[in-house]
């Protein structure tokens, strides 16, 4: 794994609400300092390369998520961060919506944990860089 030579610089967009968001913000802080790898948090989906899906999603927010994903420019990647996002654990029971969600959104990397530690987040981003 190359650490000193940055392969690509990611702008990440964090969507959803849940405990995992705390840990992502903690990784921005001085102790973990994710900007060492050229990763920064974007405020608008138009600026972002990586979409992070975390936390519990209800029907209205999933529809919003499709819009956000559509607004991002190619190439783009999606990270499933935390338990709720990986197994669609907190979806309200609506089969059609889960089906379209699975069809439209292909996760590139999965980060298990509830919530994953900030180190796990940095590790996942490094692995995503390796893949690209």
């Amino acid at each position, binding site marked *: *794994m190359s*650490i000193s030579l940055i392969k690509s610089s990611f702008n990440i967009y964090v969507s959803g609400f849940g405990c995992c968001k705390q840990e992502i913000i903690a990784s921005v802080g*001085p*102790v*973990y*300092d994710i900007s*060492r790898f050229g990763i920064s948090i974007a405020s608008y989906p138009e600026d972002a390369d990586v979409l992070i899906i975390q936390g519990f999603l209800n029907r209205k927010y999933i529809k919003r998520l499709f819009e956000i994903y559509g607004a991002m420019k190619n190439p783009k990647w999606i990270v499933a961060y935390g*338990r709720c996002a*990986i*197994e669609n*654990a907190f979806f309200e029971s609506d089969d059609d919506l889960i089906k379209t969600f699975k069809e439209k959104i292909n*996760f*590139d*990397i*999965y*980060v*298990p*944990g*509830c919530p*994953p*530690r900030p*180190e*796990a987040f*940095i*590790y*996942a981003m*490094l*692995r995503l860089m390796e*893949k690209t």
Partner: protein
Amino acid sequence: MLRVIKNFFINLGNIFRKPKTVLYPKEKILIHEGSRGLPRLKLNLDTLDIICNGCKDCERACPQQCITIRSGYEDNETVLDEFYINLGLCSFCGNCVEVCKNKAIDLSYRYQLAEYDIESLKIEKMDLVKQAEYSIRDFWTKL
């Protein structure tokens, strides 16, 4: 003038201060005793057999239903056949450790996990046994 001298000494102190940032992949924060990471199956150190006898207590106690156990019967005792953990569902709550009477399951200190494929999040029996190397707190120096 006094302020300049004061600031000079503050800056001088900052040169010798230990940096707060942990350079993550090279050095790691030593996580604390009792921190909850990936589950692992324990071995009986004399016979090198898996202690778990497949009583399914942990499967019933798991709040997220992430454990799947298949067990058979041999000489009127349950014997473990298969043991799956779906990491995508696991919340590392430690209820399975609390409920186990034989102390056959434990949590390791492994916390950095990320997979490209959702199928590789489903862990088998032998993989869970292999997690033993992560059960020492500074495992990355031994790997």
